[in-house]
């Protein structure tokens, strides 16, 4: 009985894979999504300060002010532009510059005389990603230059406490490390849900689902076949993407255990396929499904902690996203891939993903059976 059931699930799954393979557009889309798209997302727009537009108001015209002016250059900053103090406000209003550094008259003179002159840095604080970090860079660059200038003139005194900031797990702060993995996670969510949901709707629209349900097959077998077949396809795509794009092309090191991560991926796939079945079941047509997907995917991507840290969400939202498997997926992926954590560090999150996945699967299954009854 159980063997027969397993055989059914197996053969239905094979059918599922065959259907997918004959859909050239979908296959190409999956290939693209797990290769080029990941590469582009990982290396594309950077959250670090890059090419920041900067202008100088130099009312000092000294050697030091010239030195400071020359201290800003690509890739972090564009070459600065010299502007007049009177146009600063308007230029900022128009969004021409993110930063304007204003050096007062007699700046160098005052500095040498120990009068601690003030440099004003105007920051467009609506450019959130760059403004904070960029302001830090500007501060550091100016401080360095000023102190090296003073050293040359024997006026510097070294700070009494030194600090060493060590960035663990990504010493050079290369954003492609993080982004590539988040990109994979997002693609897994997106494609698994689309593939599974579309498979359900296609079968219902073509009437093949009804046909299957009249055969000696259970809704569980039909759903399970979709789960394993679609999971397998995405799993292979994920593995290829991880080894080819992330490790080989982007040279991102993998600190932890591959096996452990793939176990986690499997658990997440279980959830994502169940979500796909759920959405495929509740939407009456492909078009509705497409609209739903957009809403669901944005939630999965934005609230997972992959785009912005979970701690920054309001507390009530954090409590809600605790039930979002995508959040745990992002979290345990970081632990395993960058920090090299083992099972002891991630088992709770695995359990959470599996638990939510199972609950969802059971619920979708009940709905699935009911929807067939109500169709037409």
């Amino acid at each position, binding site marked *: 009985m159980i063997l027969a059931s397993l*055989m059914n699930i197996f*053969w239905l799954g*094979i*059918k599922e894979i065959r*259907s997918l393979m004959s859909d050239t557009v979908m296959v190409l889309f999956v290939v693209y999504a797990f290769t080029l798209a990941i590469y582009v997302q990982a290396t594309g727009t950077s959250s670090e300060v*890059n*090419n920041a*537009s900067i202008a100088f108001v130099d009312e000092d015209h000294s050697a030091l002010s010239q030195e400071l002016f020359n201290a800003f250059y690509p890739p972090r900053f*564009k070459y600065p532009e010299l502007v007049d103090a009177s146009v600063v406000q308007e230029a900022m209003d128009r969004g*021409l*510059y*993110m930063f304007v550094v204003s050096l007062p008259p007699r*700046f160098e003179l005052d*500095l040498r005389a*120990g009068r601690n002159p*003030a440099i004003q*840095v105007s*920051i*467009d*604080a*609506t*450019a959130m990603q*760059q403004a904070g*970090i960029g*302001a*830090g860079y500007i*501060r550091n660059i*100016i401080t360095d230059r000023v102190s090296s200038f*003073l050293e040359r003139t024997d006026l510097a005194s070294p700070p*009494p*406490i*030194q*600090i060493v*900031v060590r*960035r*663990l*797990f*990504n010493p050079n702060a290369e954003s492609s490390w*993080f982004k590539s993995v988040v990109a994979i996670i997002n693609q897994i969510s997106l494609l698994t849900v689309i593939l599974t949901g579309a498979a359900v709707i296609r079968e219902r629209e073509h*009437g*093949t689902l*009804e*046909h*299957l349900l*009249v*055969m000696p097959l259970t809704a569980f077998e039909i759903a399970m076949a979709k789960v394993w077949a679609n999971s397998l396809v995405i799993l292979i795509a994920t593995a290829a993407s991880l080894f080819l794009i992330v490790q080989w092309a982007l040279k991102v090191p993998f600190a932890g255990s591959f096996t452990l991560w793939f176990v986690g991926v499997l658990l997440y796939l279980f959830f994502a396929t169940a979500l796909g079945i759920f959405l495929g079941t509740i939407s009456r047509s492909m*078009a509705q*499904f497409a*609209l739903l997907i*957009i809403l669901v995917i*944005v939630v999965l991507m*934005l*609230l997972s902690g992959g*785009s912005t*840290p979970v*701690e*920054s*969400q309001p507390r009530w939202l954090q409590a809600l996203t605790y039930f979002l498997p995508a959040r745990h997926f992002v979290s345990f992926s970081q632990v395993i891939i960058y920090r090299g*954590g083992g099972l002891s560090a991630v088992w709770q999150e695995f359990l959470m993903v599996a638990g939510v996945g199972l609950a969802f699967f059971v619920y979708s299954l009940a709905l699935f059976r009911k929807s067939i*009854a109500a169709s037409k």
Partner: protein
Amino acid sequence: MVTVPAAPATASARGPVAAIKNVTHRYGEVLALDGITLDIPSGLMVGIIGPDGVGKSTLMGLLAGSRKMQEGTMTVLGGDIGDIRHRRLVCPRIAYMPQGLGKNLYLELSVWDNIDFMAQLFGLSRTERPAKVQELLDATGLAPFPQRPAGKLSGGMKQKVGLCGALVHEPDLLVLDEPTTGVDPLSRRQFWALIDDIRRDRPSMSVVIATAYMDEAQMWDWIVAMDAGKVLATGTPAELMQRTASKDLEQCFIRLLPEEKRRGHKELTIPPRTAGKAEIAIDAKGLTQRFGDFTAVDHVTLSIERGEIFGFLGSNGCGKSTTMKMLTGLLTPTEGTATIFGSSVEAGSMEVRENLGYMTQAFSLYGEMTIRQNLELHARLYHLAPEKAKARIDELVQRFGLEAHLDALAEDLPMGLKQRLSLAVAVLHDPQILILDEPTSGVDPVARDSFWELLIDLSRKQNVTIFVTTHFMNEGMRCDRISLMHAGKVLAYGAPQELIERRGAPNLEEAFIGYMEDAIAEKAGGTGAAKSDTATPAATVAETPAHPEHAQPAPWRLPLMRMLAYARNETMQILRDPVRLTFAFLGSALLMIVCGFGITTDVERIRYSTNDLDRSPDSRAYLEQFASIPRYFTQTAPVQSAEEGLKRLQADEDSLVIEMPPDFGRNLRRGARPEVLAQVDGAMTFRGETVAQYVLGVHARALQDPAVGLPTSKPQKNQADIEERFMYNPTFESIYSIAPSVPALLLLLIPAILMTVSIVREKELGSMINFYVTPTGKVEYLIGKQLPYVVIGLINFFILAAMTVLVFGVPIKGSFLMLTLCTLLYVMATTGLGMITSTFTSSQVAAVFVTAILTIVPTIQFSGLLQPVSTLEGGARVIGEIWPASYYMHSSLGTYTKGLPAGLMLGDVLFLAACIPVFLAISWIGLKKQEK
């Protein structure tokens, strides 16, 4: 060329209504029409007969001017239909009803609104419309249900609404594509009576009808028999039957077919059932199915004997399929029981299913697999032993004549073969009972007969019980017993001949109509109210006086009227479509919440621990700095060793570990410059970087601020003070930047998607034909469809603005009026983007995804949401400079957070305004006024 027979006197005076010369039409590789040359006489009822897929619909579409001509010429109503000027001229004289029940209706709209809409497109004035619509409703017997949504009508009623829509403008040429397929016999008869009445009123009108029901065409004036894109023969029905010595048109058609298609076809003979003891195979008692307050199936009681072929006759939507689903266990009946060989059919009962073979309506096997794979899959799912399965498959393949196509994909097969494959799959496991749902619709007569041969063979030789539904009366005649079903009720059941005799009717169709009329009369309780529904009420047409002087609107007003008609139509549709409505309003609110809370660059409440190896007052004073700013740092239990710190970082329990070296205090006081180590979790790069900056900031303060309490904390001499001015957003909280930016994304994404869906939906569902065959211009169509979405966009804007202020607490500093103006222009531009994507996508799914990707990516990457446009370079910069979202984001941020004067947004206003005509022009070029 086929010679046109001498037409009856009515038409002889004028030339043909349509002259077709060498017309060839292809869909990709598929040849639909193959060099057709034909003159269609005017003033007649002309039938184009042939099974599905022979090119009838293509011909009808070309005739009506809704399809684009490829090769050849076609003169319709005295001009070349391929010429746009002629089409514009004659389109008010042609009425076209496409194939498919209610294909060109708006299912959400009421009966009245559907007809009224067509009247508006044809330029009837506001004053004459109500009378005209009412007149048509009276004539078709639809008057009792003007407010019922078209989607909730029966097939026959839908076709009547379609006909009303086609007749609002009193055409000279009426083109009907399979108007009665799937319609119950009574409605069918009413439909033809209606057409007859209209013709009596307008004798000059030509009617061209395509049909797959050959018996229907028997009464018409002139017939074109078509097969495989070619004309087989033309002439009056009597002539054609005489020429082929046939007793009816169906037989005649088969005889007209080329030799190779007829091969193997022989008259179907049905051997009588051998009388034996009657074992009951299927027994249903009082089966009832209700969906809400709608009763789909009402107390159906049947008992079917083993080996019997039992026919289930009825129109689309009469409850046939629902009854079948209850018999197969797909649906649990609301009331009543069904048993198969004595065991109850409960949802999920496996033994019963082992005994069933099922063929769903239309082809339901896997088109992307070959015949062999389909058969093998089912053999496996029925757990046939491999060698047995192989033998069985070989046997079936041979018996069903599938050998030649074993490795062809199922979807590439012609309809007749597909049906045979479905049957082969259904009988693969030797079931005792076969349940077939409309197995032969769309199959040509030859293939239909060969399919029936297989059924008869199964029944008579293997004693398989066959339960088959159909809407072909002649198929009903082949069954041992039939039941006639209408509106969820079984009207009568018994042997077909017996039913005919019982009513004294000439044939089964008439008998069915008789039973239906009885049932309706009974339902009306003999009050006579049934009359409005049953008696052909078309007589009223004649009574209505011919139209008085048309108060025709001025010609210049017509385009405006049509545009507003489309706008009103679209508004009603979306108001009645819960899914799109939800997406339009709740969708943007939900996304606003998710984005507003989900996209944040604030790094706060960083969990950190300390590893103090010194434990001196100085080291504590230094560490105290971190604990004193709880907005940024949240302390966890101190760690005891470097390893423990690393473990915490690994498990993401802490994001920062600060290690104070041994003898920190002593070294500090000695001036030995001790070194503090801060370990930052850098896995999430942006966050790690920000934490590092925070640590450096705290460190700098510890060095200088005497309040810290370290002996060395004092303001330093000889250094530059850096004053940072966080402009526009002094507290530097990302919500002040995110909340105003997100609407730029949402007001692009949602209106564009809704707009594109509204157009592509029409293409996909078929109502686009109304645009093809009415005088509606492209600009009228586009702007008419756009208007409701501009309004929705604006409403969305106000919702989002309220959320920005109330939920996210971001105040409006600038001119809200100016922002509203920008928004108006912006949504006009973004709906324009939706129009553009609708021109090159043909399915709603593709339209949604393409629009989503094309709008989200540049908005997020290049319009300043993440990176200011001023920091972009090269191609990215160019996209950022021309992407409307960049300008809207500038004005939105300017109004909320920056408090810019309105004058500074003039540039945004100008740019956005300039986008609108550009997008409209691109859509205008892309939109086609005819189908390919």
